[in-house]
């Protein structure tokens, strides 16, 4: 027989170990269920995303593409990385700094027609700030940095 305090100590250690493994299991499960991948318009145009998957898309709002319904909140616009375009449909109120020519990130799914149905549209608070996601999307697409003001040399 173990000494009582040894047994207690073993009990406590088992208790901690069980608690920790349950927690880690729960965490990893939750993590695996909630990862949203980010894709550039080029990646979407190349068919890298299956219809129906939840993901984020980022790019610039194409000039002259915003088509707002007069009598409802439905809006349609095109996001671009200056290589490929993806049409986006959204029903709701757009953020303050949503403009043509500004970078945005939208969250949602592709429908069968290849239109991105957004459940959320994000723009940034600062006029001068471009989301790293949008910038990365531009770089991945190989868009010529000279053509737009957000120049940053690709690293990898």
């Amino acid at each position, binding site marked *: 027989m173990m000494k009582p305090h040894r047994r207690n100590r073993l009990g406590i250690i088992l208790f901690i170990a069980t608690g920790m493994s349950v927690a880690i299991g729960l965490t990893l499960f939750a993590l695996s269920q909630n990862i949203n991948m980010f894709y550039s318009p080029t990646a979407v145009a190349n068919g890298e995303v299956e219809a129906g998957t939840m993901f984020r898309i980022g790019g610039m709002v194409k000039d002259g593409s915003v088509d707002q319904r007069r009598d409802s909140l439905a809006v349609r616009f095109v996001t671009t990385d200056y290589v490929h375009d993806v049409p986006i449909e959204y*029903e709701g109120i757009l953020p303050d700094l949503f403009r043509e020519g500004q970078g945005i990130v939208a969250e949602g799914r592709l429908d069968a027609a290849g239109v991105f149905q957004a459940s959320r549209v994000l723009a940034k608070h600062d006029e*001068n700030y471009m989301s790293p996601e949008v910038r990365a999307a531009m770089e991945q697409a190989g868009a010529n940095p000279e053509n737009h003001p957000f120049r940053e040399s690709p690293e990898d």
Partner: protein
Amino acid sequence: MIPELGQFSLILAFCLSILLGTLPLAGAATGNGLWMSLGRPLSAGLFVFLGICLFILGHAFVTDDFSVRVVAAQSNSLLPMQYKLTALWGGHEGSFLLWTFMLSGWILAVSVFSGGMPREFVARVLGVLGLLCASYILFMLATSNPFDRMAPVPPADGADLNTALQDIGFIMHPPTLYMGYVGYSVVFAFAVAALLSGRLDAAWARWSRPWANVSWAILTIGIALGSWWAYYELGWGGWWAWDPVENPPLITWLFGAALIHSLAVTEKRRVFKSWTVLLAILAFAGSLLGTFITRSGLLTSVHAFASDPSRGVFILGILGISVGGALLLYAFRAPLIKSEFGFGPLSREVFLLANNIILVVAAASVFLGTLFPMFYQALTGDLISIGPPYFNLIFAPLMIVLVMLLGIGPISRWKKTSGSYLRRQLGKLALASLALGVALPLIVLLEISLPATIAVALALWIVLTIGRDLLAKTANKPGRWQGLRSLTYGYYGMQGAHFGVAVMLVGVALTSWFSTETSVLLRPGETVALGNYEFRFDGSERVAGPNYQADRATVLVTRSGAPVADLYPELRVYLASGTPSTEMAIDAGLTRDLFVTPGEIRDNGAWTMTVYVKPFVRWIWLGAIIMSLGAALAAADRRYRKLAGRRRESAAASSPGGQGGLQPAPGVGS
């Protein structure tokens, strides 16, 4: 000329902090009393010179000195005075100066309120804090000097403060948050000083407790203010977004809450010693992580200051050296620390251990969710984001278990509690909270709702167990009133903070589950119904503010025809920067908030807007305030002062250690 004086003062403060970071530590190591005694005057000097820096920078903002780069970047001559002053912490440089100044304030507080501690210990604490302060000032001088000038020609006017920051929330939230954050430097310094001296005893835990409590109390308010501000300013109707910059304060807060409980065990029972030290280091690491994330621009966030990689590397260096050094020291010392291990499987120690495990797991999972996208990108090159569902999925079950244990912990006894005693004390209360948890939502909503039942049952569980414990603690006294008076501040602080948890729990659960919203396009005169309320749009008018123009809508809210509130949301355009900004309109109430976010104005005078009904949302911040007051009350417990005084008398005679004579105290927080 004046800003150069600020620069000069900053350099002097740097020299003082270097002295503070070396002489007292060296004195404590060699037993040199003179060097140790320099700690207090140097702390005062550091505070004064950093205060001068802050004053001079504030002066530059108030007098519109646009030759100073940060003033030109963040202020404007049209800005109302209160925002000119607070624009100081609207950018990276100024806010870091504020942060460093607050550290010097905490250092001064330690040097003043440490009369009862041995001089070697005080010298080490002040020395560690001095080193930390030196590294912060060096960081400013090297990468982010707040007194930089615009060369060669200063602009005629400034670029203006970000419009989202022109708000009372911005005046209050950053300083409070920083104050709480920086408080963990003190707790950290206490831990490192104890590790240096090799004396991790009950005395160390008792000295640390008031500081850990006060830091936590302030941090709680800081986070709550941020949440409240985001709620009414950002206008998405939420109070917590799991934003990468919201999370580090929460991580620190969770570690801090664990630390408060673990310190109690270490002081009372002299167990969990090495664990407690580790928590103190982790809480501090959390606070630096927050700075790192905001100032490195590493993660996408609404909070991010303009990014500059060199700053990130520098802060990472501070983080690595301070936390890495402390952990190294810990690795050498921890094996030497002996914890007695005298408690059974059902005892208050075990319940507090469970509390600590849950809080630390929660902190770790927030940490993982916050930084996982970064690691993932480094490994695969793919960009991902982790959504709120991840955090909610983890947090909800953890907090439910935590709250169940919260009811049992204070009633259980140190060392050993019998299961039958707990059943006798708590069995009926558990049944009662469950029954009421089912009944109350049924009566109010006329339907069975699992989330409401869980929330109400858990909140009642907390409240009923607090009541039971109060009865038990006063049962043996001649009168109730005398009994209540004999309980300590520490005890009331603990129960108060726990009651705050109950209040917050109700708010979080009911708001998350029962909030409703709808986005609509309304022409003047049109009405939208939401829940029991009708929102009628009555047209809009042009109004002029001090530094903006606005269109103001009138929205009349009625409930079954009876008027409830008039709401006036605004669409503003700030004159200096031309930035548009939306101003929500809220009718706040104890049981519900009515909330209108304006969208845009169409050609025909119609507005798009989102209307919300948010039940019990105020209880979230009310709960935070109660928790914070509880922690502050516990820190004010007389015994910290009394023992400090007693120690002062006997400090010369004996070394600390023999604290065995403490009377068994009624509660964790006592």
